[in-house]
């Protein structure tokens, strides 16, 4: 087995807000091996961004973290201030959804690229320039010598995202965290950026956390997937296992709600009715209970924890009392269909529509 790159244990993030405490991430644990891609998938507001920012110690002023984060065997709480300076951005780097947030609009590309390298790696100016050109080549920017002299706004969205990726890679990180790196881009550009990330990851044996709301992206690019909902991981597993043997009702509902290009046109979609819970006033039991087609009375009282065929790389776990594809889950679904509503009182007609 390869080395563990990232180990997160029982991570929780609380924000204090005028309206009360908001737990955006709740008890997330995961392990990421060297060279692996781990995708975190979830709806808007599920805590994906907060989670990814917490990994590089970028928590908003009103946030508080619990739990431990180990990167490359190093607990980030044990880093001294000066060590941290050359750790985040060097060993761990991040790519954000909007490339403009990471680029300084009034500085040329080369200046921005070289500055980071000279600061962190203490290389000479000419060496930094050489490296910058090599990097831009690596991210497939044509005629990098000329492009380097341009300002961010002179580049297209796809080009900008490539530059941001080049900047993130400048100091040869071992772990790359990409928070929706392609959401703002066209499908064809998205493909080329994801191809690029794949290529670089394999070349450099880099590990990657890929945040996305698109199950399709996760399916095509990740070794493993964690499905996040209301700040908790609902189901985790190897990509193939997860799709072949889907256990969590939320994962199933999410997949059924998106149009599948392999199906004929006018195939009826099954939306997930209702809305995610209010994180300021979270439910006592399973966060998905109100919208879940399997929900039983016990789901309303206690929170399920991740369990399943755990152990090493075959790890496939889900947090559900009545999982899909088990006799218990089937019975729960049948009972709800007969009752006409789930335990949260949501009508089954809305939840499953014409699917069953």
């Amino acid at each position, binding site marked *: 087995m390869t080395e563990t790159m990232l180990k997160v244990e029982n991570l929780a993030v609380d924000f204090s807000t005028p309206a009360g405490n908001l737990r955006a991430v709740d008890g997330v644990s995961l392990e990421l091996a060297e060279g692996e891609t781990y995708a975190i998938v979830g709806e808007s507001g599920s805590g994906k961004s907060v989670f990814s920012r917490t990994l590089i110690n970028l928590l908003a002023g009103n946030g508080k973290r619990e739990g431990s984060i180990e990167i490359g065997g190093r607990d980030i709480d044990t880093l001294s201030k000066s060590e941290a300076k050359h750790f985040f951005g060097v060993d761990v780097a991040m790519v954000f959804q909007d490339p403009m947030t990471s680029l300084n609009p009034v500085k040329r590309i080369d200046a921005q690229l070289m500055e980071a390298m000279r600061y962190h790696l203490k290389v000479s100016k000419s060496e930094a320039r050489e490296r910058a050109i090599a990097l831009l080549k690596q991210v497939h920017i044509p005629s990098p010598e000329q492009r380097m002299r341009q300002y961010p706004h002179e580049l297209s969205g796809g080009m900008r995202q490539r530059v941001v990726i080049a900047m993130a890679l400048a100091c040869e990180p071992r772990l790359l965290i990409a928070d929706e790196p392609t959401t703002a881009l066209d499908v064809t550009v998205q493909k080329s950026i994801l191809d690029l990330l794949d290529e670089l990851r394999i070349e450099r044996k880099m590990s990657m956390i890929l945040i996305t709301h698109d199950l399709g992206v996760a399916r095509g690019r990740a070794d493993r997937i964690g499905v996040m909902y209301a700040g908790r991981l609902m189901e985790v597993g190897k990509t193939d296992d997860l799709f072949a043997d889907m256990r969590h009702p939320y994962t199933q509902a999410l997949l059924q709600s998106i149009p599948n290009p392999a199906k004929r046109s006018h195939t009826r979609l099954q939306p997930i*009715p209702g809305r995610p819970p209010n994180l300021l006033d979270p439910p006592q039991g399973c966060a998905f209970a109100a919208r879940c087609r399997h929900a039983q009375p016990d789901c309303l009282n206690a929170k399920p924890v991740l369990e399943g065929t755990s152990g090493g790389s075959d790890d496939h776990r889900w947090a559900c009392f009545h999982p899909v594809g088990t006799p218990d889950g089937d019975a729960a679904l049948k009972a709800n269909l007969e009752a006409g509503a789930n335990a949260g009182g949501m009508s089954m007609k809305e939840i499953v529509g014409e699917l069953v």
Partner: protein
Amino acid sequence: MAGSGTAHLRESDDVLVRVEHMVVEFPISGGTVHAVSDVSFDLVEGETLGIVGESGCGKSTTARAAIQLPKPTSGSVWFKGLDITKLSKEQMRQIRPEFQMIFQDPISSLNPRRTVTEIISDGLKVWGENDSWTLDTIDELMEAVGIDPRYGERKPHQFSGGQCQRISIARALVLDPKVIICDEPVSALDVSVQAQILNLLEDMKARYGVSLVFISHDLSVVKNISDRVMVMYMGKTCEVAGSDDLFEKPTHHYTRALMAAIPGADVVVEDQTLEGELPSAINPPAGCRFNSRCPAATDECRSIEPQIREVAPNHFVACHHPVLT
């Protein structure tokens, strides 16, 4: 001309709208943006026409110019035997109720200072009550689109994005239109909400017998909702075919590149990535506009513009060397 032609236009009686040789150009300092260059399409009663293509290819401009917002630079738009590009402003205003539109940004498309009931009943106040809806039946319409009529006095910001899109749909439906143009109506919505709005559009189409023009850059969504799909690239038509047909047998190289880019799906085309950047719309390439990025481009492609032709029954493509299987 390349990527142009009218071979795909239909001659049946139930053609509702017929757009011929439409050109839209925007003069800007330093040149002219060729946003739409000789695009033709038609819409049959009860049909959903999907328009796909990358950002900036002219999808919105095409659809908006068809309803004279703004008037196209040239070309004609036939509706009920009239070329509506020839109408005066006031004459055009008189037929506006027949064409409605739903926008991408659900929140920005509703006036933040008016109540939901005001917004939805606006059309009736301008045009008077019609056979389908009256001021008294607004509540029914709200229920039909899934908005609780009790919330009628609320302002748009008290609703979620998906609910705002429902309100927009009701506002469009109240005039009993023939055509609704949906310009990326689900692109700004969360995945689980997207399905709700797509289903609602399908239901409303069946119930009230409207035709839809559905614009999106998401191929899966377009395939799901459309009967016929038009693929656009840089203001030109690439391919027009029935939805399932197009996805089973994409023949234009650009369509194939788009399909290869659908994330995580098992599609019929070989893996390929589009090389190079989108050329400038101020100075588009001669010949086939896709030639700078096409894997099959030849000298012919660089000089002569391909014409739209039928390569299989009801499957039209504008390409010198289509992939025919």
